[in-house]
């Protein structure tokens, strides 16, 4: 009888006690307690959508899903999701990434290098599943397997349409002005002080009987600044050949040296003095930045060039070179498109071509239709930029944001 009364009492207590709520379960989970009552797995994610990632070179799949009903609601015990990938429905599934709770999508990017352990092959089937995880590693829920999906690259990146439009416009402008220049039109380019000084400096070197030092900088043969510098070097070399002045061109890059040798050789031939050209006028020093500077500084102090011309791409060595040249008493003309180095040339050189003035100088000195045409095209592109900037600025200030979005270029 006593036992029956005790059972009845326990039954009453059980009915009277409040039910275990989701909130209490969550609190315990977050605090790291794992009791039998809390091993309730959250709901899995649903509606997994797979697609090849747009506008890429392949080796990537984009996943999107509807989050677990227990992510921010329900049991509210989801702390994140783990993405798994397999080459077949049955597996083996390999964990690819983890994303925090609340995430709806993920881009699974693999390597395109075949010898990489993360290599992701294009045009083969992949299957994905997503594990909804909680603070307890043993408590999770897995989605249904989604797939198959294949990754592949796109031939055309639609995110870069603005670049295509600008390239097309720029090319059209360039071709138009080159044709005009070839047709004999007089394309005006305003005089630049630094360019006028080149002839003056060559004359001074001739009078003094001292050589001209021409430094092409640390750029590669394909840098725009180096290409512009070749044209100026060609012009200087031609004058030097005519006046029979010495020319010293120490090079940092072997390819630059090769192109510079060709340029100087052609200029000497143009001046009718091919016999005066010596290959060691243009020589390779080293590809170590400061060793190169040490060598050029030594040349400045030992050969005493009357004029130092620095045209091209320069880095930390710019001030060391220009200061040594100033110390040696040479006339110095510099030009670079490296914004951080222009201040050093401005303070230490007699003339400095700032940024695009270097490109203009090559066109101005060369007076070739190709160069003049491209310079004119650049000018009109700048005018276009000013116009677009003014329009964009006005529209933005009147609350129209769409115009700005057109200029967004994806990676």
């Amino acid at each position, binding site marked *: 009888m006593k036992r029956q009364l005790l059972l009845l009492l326990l039954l009453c207590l059980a009915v009277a006690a409040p039910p275990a709520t989701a909130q209490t379960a969550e609190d315990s989970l977050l605090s790291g307690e794992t009791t039998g009552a809390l091993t309730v797995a959250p709901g899995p994610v649903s509606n997994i959508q797979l697609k090849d990632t747009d506008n890429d070179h392949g080796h990537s799949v984009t996943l999107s899903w509807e989050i677990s009903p227990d992510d921010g609601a329900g049991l509210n015990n989801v702390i994140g999701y783990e993405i798994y990938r397999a080459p077949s429905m049955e597996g083996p599934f390999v964990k690819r990434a983890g994303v925090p709770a609340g995430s709806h999508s993920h881009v699974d990017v693999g390597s395109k290098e075949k010898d990489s352990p993360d290599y992701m092959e294009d045009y083969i089937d992949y299957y994905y599943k997503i594990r909804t995880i909680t603070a307890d590693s043993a408590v999770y829920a897995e989605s249904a397997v989604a797939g198959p999906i294949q990754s592949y690259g796109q031939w055309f990146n639609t995110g*870069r349409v*603005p*670049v295509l439009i*600008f*390239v097309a416009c720029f090319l059209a402008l360039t071709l138009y002005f080159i044709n005009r220049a070839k047709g004999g039109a007089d*394309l*005006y*380019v*305003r005089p*630049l002080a630094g360019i006028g000084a080149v002839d003056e400096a060559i004359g001074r070197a001739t009078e003094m009987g001292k050589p001209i030092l021409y430094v092409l900088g640390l750029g590669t*043969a*394909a*840098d*725009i600044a180096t*290409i512009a510098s070749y044209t100026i070097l060609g012009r200087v070399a031609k004058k030097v050949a005519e006046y029979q002045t010495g020319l010293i061109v120490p090079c940092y890059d072997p*390819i630059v040296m*090769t192109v510079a040798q*060709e340029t100087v050789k052609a200029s000497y031939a143009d001046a009718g003095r091919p016999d005066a050209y010596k290959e060691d006028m243009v020589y*390779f*020093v*080293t*590809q*170590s930045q*400061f*060793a*190169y500077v*040490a*060598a050029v*500084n*030594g040349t400045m102090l*030992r050969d005493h060039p009357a004029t130092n011309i620095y045209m091209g791409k320069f880095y*930390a060595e710019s*001030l060391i070179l220009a200061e040594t040249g100033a110390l040696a008493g040479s006339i110095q003309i510099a030009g670079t498109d490296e*914004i*951080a180095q*222009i*201040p*050093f040339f401005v303070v230490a050189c007699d003339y400095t071509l*700032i*940024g*695009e003035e270097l490109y*203009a100088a090559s066109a101005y000195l060369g007076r070739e239709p190709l160069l003049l045409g491209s310079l*004119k095209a650049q*000018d009109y*592109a*700048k005018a276009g*930029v*000013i116009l*677009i*900037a003014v329009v*964009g*600025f006005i*529209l*933005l*200030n009147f609350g129209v944001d769409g*115009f*700005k979005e057109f*200029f*967004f*270029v994806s990676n």
Partner: protein
Amino acid sequence: MNGSRWMLIILIAVVALFLVSWAIKSFPSSGVTVSWSSIRHAFFVTLAAFVTLAIFSFLYKDNPYYKFAEHLFVGVSAAYWMCVGFWSTFVGNLIPRISPGLSKFFGVPYKEFTFYYFVPLILGILLLMRLSSKAGWLSRWALAFIVGTTAGLNLIRYLRSDFISQVSNTFVPLLVQWKGAGAFFSDFSLASGGQFTLMLTNWVIFIGTFCGLIYFFFSKEHKGVFGAASRVGIWVLMITFGASFGYTVMGRVSLLVGRLTFLFDDWLGLLN
């Protein structure tokens, strides 16, 4: 005494100081065992200090010690970069993709035969044709390919990063969070998040870009209003260059501090 005798005396003094420094560095303190590695380490630290001081001597004038350091620096670096180029580009990249036999010879793992790698190989051989007086013209093909291809690639890169992106960054509101003149003047501070500072920043961006572009417009003489805008542009540029100059000089000072730390700590041991 004539100049050459002075030079000889200075040379003997420098060599003597070098040897003394080496000896002191080799026997640092009592109780420490002297080994070949400590003697070798002392030699290289002393040599590095000597070469550093030789380079610094250029501040006085060109001299034989600077010449020695310069030639050593140039020679070693040229050889070093040639070795790096050979082992990283030729052996590291090319060989494992064209020949299993050569890969084995150089001790690098063979990856797989890739036909495309013959293109740079052929271009490289063409470049070396310069060494021949008869076939030297062939090198121009390789040069044309290198310059043309990379210039074309650079065009796209510049257009994207230096042109289009910068255009869109110029679209800035000139009235940031405008709440009327009263609110504007009540928040008339130079705090970075303040309304006045935000508006001033946007005005400077817009006017600076506008006038800077006009300065770089070469098809028209800078006269009248155009000239005035151009002058504003050059002022904006010069202020920017001034700030950049100061910032970079600070970086250079840190390089100097690095060398002085080497001399006073690693060599002389004067710093804790």
